[in-house]
């Protein structure tokens, strides 16, 4: 199933976007054309939800002026789609597998935050206030909108068809390792916060991580 992945800056500006087509047989299937244009809008809808999640999870930090971005909140509260406290991920990052003793990592992963016509949207929030968001599409059985036209009545309620299933653990690994790659980019003295990330090396590595953790060939 194809994914659309984006890193959103602290001022809600996308600094990196990529689409991971799913591979079935020889050809790779991406998002149907009209859905592609929808992605940015779906993304923004999800951002508002993430923002609410952010303050809801950490009300006291919000009180202090802009407060820290620390809406990451613990994984203890009741919000169901928050991730469960997971075991150490085995990702060997550039910072010498920092991510394997990650007691803070999992509370950045927000899991599935929204769904839209069978598309699931998951998100990951860094303490620096960056948002990693992914729209998980399905190929064939894409609810009512598979045929490319979104019929009017579907727009209101979300499609009754079951949304795409999300493998939390695999996704968390992907998000954490992309987070590590992002930190490495941030450490570059010539990179300024919220600059678009255009280095081919970054793109290549993110796609490799996507292949490793998420894209399941059908």
């Amino acid at each position, binding site marked *: 199933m194809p994914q659309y992945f984006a890193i959103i800056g602290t001022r809600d500006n996308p600094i990196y976007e990529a689409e991971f087509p799913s591979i079935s047989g020889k050809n790779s299937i991406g998002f149907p054309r009209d859905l592609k244009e929808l992605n940015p809008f779906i993304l923004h809808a999800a951002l508002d939800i993430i923002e609410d999640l952010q303050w809801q999870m*950490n009300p006291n930090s919000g009180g202090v*002026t802009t407060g820290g971005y620390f809406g990451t909140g*613990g994984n203890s509260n009741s919000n169901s789609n928050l991730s469960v406290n997971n075991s150490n991920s085995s990702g060997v990052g550039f910072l010498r597998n920092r991510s394997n003793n990650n007691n803070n990592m999992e*509370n950045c992963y927000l899991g599935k935050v929204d769904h839209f016509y069978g598309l699931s949207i998951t998100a990951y929030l860094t303490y620096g206030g960056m948002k990693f968001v992914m729209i998980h599409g399905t190929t064939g059985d894409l609810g009512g909108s598979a045929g490319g036209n979104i019929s009017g009545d579907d727009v209101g309620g979300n499609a009754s068809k079951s949304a795409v299933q999300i493998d939390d653990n695999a996704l968390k690994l992907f998000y954490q390792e992309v987070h590590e790659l992002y930190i490495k980019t941030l*450490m570059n003295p010539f990179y300024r916060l919220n600059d678009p990330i255009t280095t081919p090396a970054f793109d290549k590595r993110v796609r490799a991580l996507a292949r490793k953790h998420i894209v399941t060939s059908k």
Partner: protein
Amino acid sequence: MDPGRNYQANHPLTEQEKKQQQFRLFQESLPKVSQLAFQMLLNEIVPQAMAVENELNDLNSLEQTGDRTSAVEGERKGEGEAENIPINDLSLQEKEVSSYNTNLKIQPSHKLIMELAELEDEEKYNNILKRLRNIGFEMGKKMCEMLVFSNNPNLHFKEMDLLLIMKFICRDVWKQLYEKPIDNLKTNHRGTFYLIDYNYKPIQAFSLSEEAPAKELKMVEPFLEIPLGLIKGVLASLGYSPEEVICISSFVDKPADDRPKYGFPKGVSFHVQVNMKPK
């Protein structure tokens, strides 16, 4: 995999201790360089900031008179600028002598520091301090991202408020850079903090030849801009924008007993003010 299973027989480590130990082992495994090399680099930024200001002024003044290159050439006493020799043509490398090796006019650090301390031109002085503070700011921002990312067990993001961030600076940030934590943190719990370091490491060997305590304090002032910028950088990376944070430094007397006989005569207090207007 539940990490708690393999407790040692005699005294089982609590979860927190286990994480501390794991974090410590991880920190020890990281590649290291010499602290002195770091300190010499950090300190040399200050005299060079003075040299940069001088050079930029020379260039600007000549810019008005239109022949900027001659200023630079003059300084290099007219030896040929190394044109861009194709790197892959190895044979040429042998003859390539770098343009700045032989006769660059290099001012020694102590003279630049004296010049900076005696600078009357307020605007130039503030330019230099701003440059130093900005370097500290960038260091603080990036360092914070990295330290936080290396998930130090005693960092809890759930209740990360200002006081906890200040403790993070006093303990983790200071220890990473200066091998010792801040000696004393005071606060009025309304956004005002005093971070007191009685022996700010980079300046402990500084002393003038003649008995001139006031002069020494003036000369050391620019060296405090980098840590001030660093504090603002850490706060900025954790959500407190620079406009809301005021950082100034002042000197404090050292407690009588702990005075290492030959350190810098005064301790340093970093005063941090975060204005707390509710959003």
